[in-house]
């Protein structure tokens, strides 16, 4: 009855609806500042969601709304954060690009390209001593592969055989520049071998493919086999940030990408496996309703109180 596809589709829709709402709020200037959407890339986070155990930890980038949702952060607190409200998961201190929700195993976004990878390695290191059997998932873009910190993180984790899964979301663009122009070999997963690690390129638009490969990587990490590098191929269907004029796109690029994006893919799969049209529609509608009401709730929250702006600098 295509239950798996329908569930995945619903999860993808939750993320998409969240971000479409954020875009609406941004265009309405309820949200201010730079916002990076991951529309088109949701299948990766959806594929990962079920694998993240209670002691595990996730580290993402500024393009991390979907990852926060995948970790279970309530959408109203995410909206609140993006909106700079008191109910924001960080009370408005993080914003769209630097949110953190440790209670949900989401150790946060990072707005410095590549900087999250060594931090994630440290989270894995901590697991050596706290008997948690923690696996740490660290997510970054294709462009981040060229940052020194990511290299150091992979080598460090490899040398110490730490339970880290390095997950590269290859959307083929680093901001406005194609990754293929910025490397000598754009099969990024092949860098794993440099560190003596397993590496693989996978379809990042299919949650189930992601799930399967991530499951092996988690299993390897969990059982002492050390880190893995996965390169999940995907496409961002929107600009690098809201407002990006996307003049750099190749002709036909987006049309092509839309044919393979997760909603299209999962809808087809669900249909092929016998899902009813009504269920497919529900997957979207329920998600949109959830996000509309979460946004409405967040909008009812106060703007963060300026009088608290100096709190929490030191212990």
């Amino acid at each position, binding site marked *: 009855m295509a239950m798996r596809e329908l569930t995945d589709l619903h999860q993808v829709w939750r993320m998409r609806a969240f971000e479409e709402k954020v875009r609406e709020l941004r265009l309405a200037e309820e949200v201010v500042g730079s916002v990076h959407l991951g529309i088109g890339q949701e299948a990766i986070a959806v594929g990962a969601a079920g694998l993240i155990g209670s002691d595990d930890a996730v580290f993402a980038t500024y393009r991390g709304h979907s990852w926060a949702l995948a970790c279970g952060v309530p959408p109203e607190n995410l909206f609140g954060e993006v909106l700079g409200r008191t109910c924001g998961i960080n009370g408005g201190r993080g914003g769209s690009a630097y949110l953190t929700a440790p209670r949900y195993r989401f150790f946060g976004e990072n707005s410095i390209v590549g900087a999250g990878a060594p931090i994630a390695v440290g989270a894995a290191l901590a697991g050596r001593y706290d008997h948690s059997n923690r696996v740490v998932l660290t997510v970054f873009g294709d462009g981040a592969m060229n940052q020194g910190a990511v290299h150091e993180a992979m080598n460090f984790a490899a040398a110490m055989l730490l339970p880290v899964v390095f997950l590269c979301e290859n959307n083929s663009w680093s901001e406005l520049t194609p990754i293929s122009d910025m490397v000598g070999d754009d099969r990024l997963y092949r860098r794993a071998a440099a560190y003596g690690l397993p590496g693989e390129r996978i379809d990042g638009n299919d949650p189930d493919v992601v799930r399967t490969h991530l499951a092996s990587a988690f299993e390897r990490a969990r059982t002492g086999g050390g880190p893995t590098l996965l390169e999940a191929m995907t496409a961002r269907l929107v600009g690098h940030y809201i407002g990006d004029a996307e003049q750099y796109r190749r002709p036909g690029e987006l049309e092509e990408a839309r044919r393979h994006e997760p909603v299209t893919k999962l809808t087809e799969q669900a249909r092929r496996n016998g899902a009813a049209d009504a269920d497919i529609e529900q997957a979207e509608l329920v998600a949109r309703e959830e996000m509309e009401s979460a946004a409405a709730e967040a909008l009812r929250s106060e703007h963060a109180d*300026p009088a608290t702006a100096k709190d929490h600098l030191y212990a």
Partner: protein
Amino acid sequence: MPDTTLASEKLTYGEAVRAALRRCLTELPETLFYGEDVAKPGGVFGVTRGLHRDFGDRVFDTPISESAILGSAVGAAMLGRRPIVEIMWIDFAMVAFDQIINQLANVRYVSQGLLHAPVVIRTQQGSAPGACAQHSQSLEALFLHVPGVRVCLPWTAQDAYDLLVTAVHSDDPVVVIENRTLYNAGKQEVVLAGPVQRMGEIRVRRAGTDVTAVTWGAITAKVLEAAELLAGEGISVEVVETPWLNPFPTDEVAARVSATGRLAVVHEANVTGGFGAEVVVRMAEAGVALRSPALRIGLPDSRVPAAPSLVAGLMPDAPRIAESLRKLVHS
């Protein structure tokens, strides 16, 4: 003083930067310009559009590798080029600060002047609505503690042009710190073909007699607003912008401060360890007599939150600056 015999054009700050780059790339064949997204896409702020088209492979995009960007600039400069590199946000310079402090700054000194490193690092900084803690810092003080590296912060479109031209013509490394909130903030008349100016000139943005406010960067606008507010109350604030912080025009500033007998330094950077402290102490060392202790206004030693309402609780704005200046004058 703009030379009125020269042609001028109405340009935004961002366009002025582009015009300066265009001029330097034209008149100095040894210049290169590169950084992340600067060439084919024309920069994340659109500032460098058209340069790649017009200057070909002397303008190019790079991987997200700040150590490689800065390091390669050092090496290319050693071998006779005059690289202008962009670090998209000053915060990102921190991933490769070694290449500035331990490498770039040493080239001339250690080689006894046999080598030099005429590298220009163009970057931008500061707080803007909604930007996160990792994209909001004002870090000029870190660079100003590094002997061997010049530092300036243009505020007007004219200075965005002039300072960059001066920086590129200099045989010393220069860090030019722009401000992204200014790139598209309206057009100003900019004189374009003037002679290369010397470093370290001050800009008296407003005359005044009760207190001298020394400032730099985008916050200059707020200081001027504050001065305007106070003018209505009969308090006369002199606003001296010092777009060059290295070299810092100690004597010129001292002369102005001596005339009013009161000093406030206003910057967007954190107060503790900010360059404001340096300015205050230099005035004392220069023997400037003050009627009341100098005042420092800046971010009150905090990280920068994303929510605009929180930032408003921290960042000096015109009313708050005015309030501080009022107190100073009445103390």
